[in-house]
């Protein structure tokens, strides 16, 4: 590895550097100056994209500390996953600013805490990501850790997970 790197570095830099993005027609993606998010391919927004029907009543939203608590849990789940050696590689190349927002919206919508979900459906969002069962379990553990930190009771955690677990078919690659 080091030898190859050294050999590459030692090559005379006579020719002008090639813009590979331009050569291959890769479009430059710029972050939105307001939201800080990268653009995604167009899709139809619909709460059904959240992949589960919301709980009825306000008990779940209250148990999760309303929108503030839910936002902390969604953010923390993403942060733990970005730092988790088991699955970090899947997250690094994606837009974590957008993911924190959409994951919050999804959780908030499902927990009936007064949000609409504006993200993509689960199959589209995770297409070609190569997610395996092991990665899914790692993410569940990170979500459980985030909920634990917010002192969500275990039975309540499981009730929420019961809405997410059936989505595994759309997330895990077969």
């Amino acid at each position: 590895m080091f030898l190859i790197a050294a050999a590459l570095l030692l090559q005379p830099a006579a020719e002008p550097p090639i813009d590979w993005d331009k050569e291959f027609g890769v479009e430059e993606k710029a972050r939105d100056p307001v939201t800080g998010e990268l653009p995604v391919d167009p899709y139809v927004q619909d709460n059904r994209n959240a992949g589960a029907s919301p709980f009825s009543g306000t008990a779940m939203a209250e148990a999760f500390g309303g929108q503030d608590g839910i936002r902390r849990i969604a953010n923390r789940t993403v942060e733990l996953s970005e730092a988790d050696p088991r699955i970090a590689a899947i997250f690094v190349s994606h837009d974590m600013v957008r993911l924190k927002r959409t994951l919050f919206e999804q959780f908030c919508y499902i927990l009936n805490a007064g949000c609409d979900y504006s993200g993509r459906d689960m199959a589209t969002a995770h297409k070609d990501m190569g997610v395996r069962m092991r990665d899914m379990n790692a993410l569940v553990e990170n979500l459980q850790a985030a909920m634990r930190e917010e002192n969500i009771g275990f039975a309540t955690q499981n009730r929420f997970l019961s809405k997410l677990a059936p989505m595994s078919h759309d997330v895990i690659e077969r």
Partner: protein
Amino acid sequence: MDQHFPRLLAALSLALACVASPAWAEDAPVIDGGKLLLTNGVSTIEGTSGGGVATWATIAGRETDRGIGLSGHVTLIELPDYGWQSHGVAVGIANRIELSYARQNFDTRDVGTALGLGQGYTLNQDVFGAKVRLLGDTVYGDPLLPQISIGVEHKRNRDTPVARAVGAAHGKGTDVTLSATKLFLSHSVLVNATARLTKANQAGLLGFGTAGNDDHSLQFEGSVAYQLSRRAVIGAEYRTKPDNLAIAREDDWLDLFAAYALTDNLTLTAAYVDLGSIATFDKQRGGFVSAQLAF
């Protein structure tokens, strides 16, 4: 107790140390250890994965769909007139196939004298198991579709003369199990139902079938468990059994258990078991403890 067991464990640990070393850090290791805690069940008295007494549709080991999992266990049961010790190993392949082996040692203590076998005569049996997950997942997917597995348990009683003496037709037998297991997350409740075709008298420790009835009979194993936390679960099990031997009545089994994952790899199970009447000695109720190491 079997002298090979400590050596087997040592060999197992060595193999694990080699395979689990981070030689290929990027991809998941072969022993991936990625299963959610407790979703491999605990080791049953027959060496399969399940709830202690009942076999479940779970696959042993902590592997997921691309890895290999391993587990080893030791179980002790203390009864008024008998002592049970069993131990075994299991391999899980891709959360699809489970291969297991268990050795059961049943100490007859004073009953041995009464039956003319001799004080502390121990009945021994080897159980070789294979289980395949056919469809479904205990945790994920359709919330009403359980994980369904089919299994065989080939049992070889090592005291065939004794089994014959009490009226059994054979010293060997094969059980077939069909199990369905689901964790109903919305209620934190796990339910298992197993149908077992068997000829075994007292799980095989008193042989298989009788001269008069040498057919497999259909038996049922049911378990209900409540998940208290990621690491703790409590539950109850009921297992029906054939009652073929003329010389002694055989009862259904039941147990109340608590399992705790002390670490990601070590799970301890404690249970109250009611094994009913065994070889004319009634009310065999007592304590069950089991330790399982799983990777």
